[in-house]
């Protein structure tokens, strides 16, 4: 899955700039209702469908399977754009591409790919990634959901929690225990929504990202055909972690998008304050904070692109992806908080996106590996 497009001297290639503009046009046309998705906790189905039409749900899929094979860097560029307008749409697309499609492409056999990709690349089906459980979040290997081999199938029992797109997805990648070993007893399966025993459990009511349904996915004696096992038994945790490197790039890009939106709000706010000669005369502390945040936005975008390029080149990028996610997600929160402060009452009264950005940003430090887990990955990587 090598990207056809590159970063050279910190500039995107012309192909990527063109792609970026295409995505920007999409966001302007289709993501106007972000505030409403949030207020009504309504899944942005039409927006996701429109994205699918434009081929935005298949960026991490090879061309032979119907994908655009644009790769991780292109996905990052795309996700920053989308998330700057609507984080609920952004995470839906990020999970579909970075966690599900890229996993299927990398770890499934040809037959499996042919079975699922036709629906996944078109967005006819949406994907969800089911790793966390009630008692295993950061400590993912503590998962308890089990899949017992029984002839030509497995019997799966367990409940997965915090599943993004849970109630809207058609294809679930579910990590389940096939053996006792904490790490090597975990395997990955594809489970389809329509199968007997698969149900959507509790839907979370959340601080933000309310347009993206986060639900429990419950498996009760689900008969999972053996040919839905991904790769082989026991490599599930390895698959999960490898996939998360890519997922983290998606969340880093989401964070950049949210940060950018917050910084844009500040820019508008500061830009309006001029003296009688039209020169900026906004509060210096406000301007300085804006300058610091805008600098970090550029810096952490480079961190994100660097990791994406490595992943596109097939180089392991756990440390680099963790750096990108950790830095970008903290920036998103800092920027959104600062935007609210700077806008004052207009920052909290819902008359502009500031307060939504603050609520949406908060999840980026939590999901797909909380900040402290990113720091652990980085420290281990650098101290090794």
């Amino acid at each position: 899955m090598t990207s056809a497009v590159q970063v050279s001297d910190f500039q995107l290639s012309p192909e990527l700039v063109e792609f970026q503009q295409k995505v920007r046009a999409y966001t302007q046309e289709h993501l106007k209702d972000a505030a409403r998705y949030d207020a009504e906790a309504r899944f942005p189905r039409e927006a996701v469908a429109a994205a699918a039409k434009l081929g935005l749900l298949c960026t991490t899929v090879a061309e032979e399977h119907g994908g655009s094979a644009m790769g991780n860097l292109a996905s990052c560029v795309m996700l920053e754009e989308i998330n700057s307008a609507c984080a609920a749409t952004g995470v839906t697309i990020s999970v579909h591409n970075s966690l599900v499609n890229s996993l299927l492409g990398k770890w499934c056999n040809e037959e499996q790919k042919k079975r699922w990709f036709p629906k996944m690349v078109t967005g006819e089906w949406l994907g969800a990634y089911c790793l966390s459980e009630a008692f295993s979040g950061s400590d993912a290997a503590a998962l308890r959901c089990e899949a017992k081999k029984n002839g030509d199938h497995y019997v799966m029992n367990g409940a997965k929690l915090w599943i993004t797109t849970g109630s809207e997805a058609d294809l679930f990648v579910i990590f389940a225990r096939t053996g006792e070993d904490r790490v090597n007893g975990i395997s990955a399966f594809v489970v389809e929504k329509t199968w007997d025993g698969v149900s959507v459990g509790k839907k979370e009511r959340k601080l933000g990202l309310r347009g993206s349904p986060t639900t429990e996915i419950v498996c009760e004696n689900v008969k999972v055909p053996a040919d839905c096992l991904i790769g082989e038994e026991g490599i599930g945790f390895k698959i999960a972690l490898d996939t998360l490197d890519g997922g983290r790039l998606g969340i880093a890009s989401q964070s950049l998008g949210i940060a950018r939106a917050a910084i844009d709000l500040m820019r508008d706010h500061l830009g309006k304050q001029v003296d009688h000669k039209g020169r900026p005369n906004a509060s210096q502390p406000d301007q300085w904070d804006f300058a610091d945040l805008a600098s970090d936005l550029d810096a952490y975008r480079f961190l994100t692109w660097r990791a994406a390029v490595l992943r596109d080149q097939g180089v392991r990028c756990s440390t680099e992806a963790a750096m990108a996610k950790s830095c970008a997600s903290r920036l998103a929160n800092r920027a959104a908080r600062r935007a609210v402060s700077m806008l004052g009452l207009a920052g909290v009264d819902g008359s502009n996106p500031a307060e939504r950005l603050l609520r949406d940003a908060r999840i980026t430090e939590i999901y797909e590996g909380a900040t402290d887990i990113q720091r652990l990955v980085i420290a281990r990587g650098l101290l090794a």
Partner: protein
Amino acid sequence: MHNLQLTDDQEMVVDTVKKFVVDSVAPKAQELDEHRTFVRDWCDALAELGVYGLSLAEDKGGAGMGLVPFVAALEAVGEHSGSLARLWIGQMQAVMALESVGGDLLDELAAGSKLAAFIGAEHGFTFADGRLTGSAAFVPAALEADVLIVVAGDAVVQVDASACTRTATTGLGLNSAACGRVECDGVGATELAGADAHKAELVALVGTAAAAVGAGVGSVRVGRNHAAERIAFGKPLLAQQAVQRKLVESTRRVEAARQLTWHAARLADLGGDAADAAAHARITAVDAAVQASDEAIQILGGYGYTVEYHAERHYRDAKTFEVLDGGSNALRDRLAAKAFV
């Protein structure tokens, strides 16, 4: 040893408020906030406890206890409900602004038979020829208040709430405080000659500081309790140094804010100029509350992001406190202007 500064009488009042908060407010605060339900019952309960006149001079019908027990009790309220804390602050602003005026309105406000929303000078209302004009975004209690007390230039005026246009806003926080937009286009209003806008402002500063300290305390408690129960990597989350450090630092910041808050209240009660001290307390406490609630969310992880564990509510409320009454940055500018210009 904590309340070194409270007399026995004061401590009794504070304990009574604490009991009410723990028994009645704590179990329902999150749910009512989620549904944006105004908490009139709680306002009435505070009235019954007689706390709206807590700091009011005895010869005006109050308890004359000063601001120290006010901040002590308010902290307990803020620990469980920022909305109720803010409603009490608004009512107290009205009461203390009117202390020097007296009269029936003061009696009603101190008794809690009328609910006030207070609109400060930062909104820039104007008053002329008995008419009040101006608008204010996001005024706590606005939607449910009986009377608005408005600072308009040098004047403090009262206006019948129903005479003003009031619009609900779907804001970030303080969802149970009936916050809304207020517009007055030449509405008939009555000047309250001799009312003390500065006193009202001081009440807002130390009150917000105390409420934010409470939010910080509540956040630390939520984070700590979760971390003690949650097992990860074979041991309670609380055994992780990184988690401990978050809680230690949150506690320390909240404690610094509390000491500043008590200092400001004591100074005011002794008749000193507590304006700077109160501003320091307010800025520090709100920052501490934002940080503590942010860290609590982080400790709770996915649970912290849901509306079931209080952390996200403290986070939203703390950020909302930050921008009310002109906001922390305007306070910083004012401290600078006073010291350096």
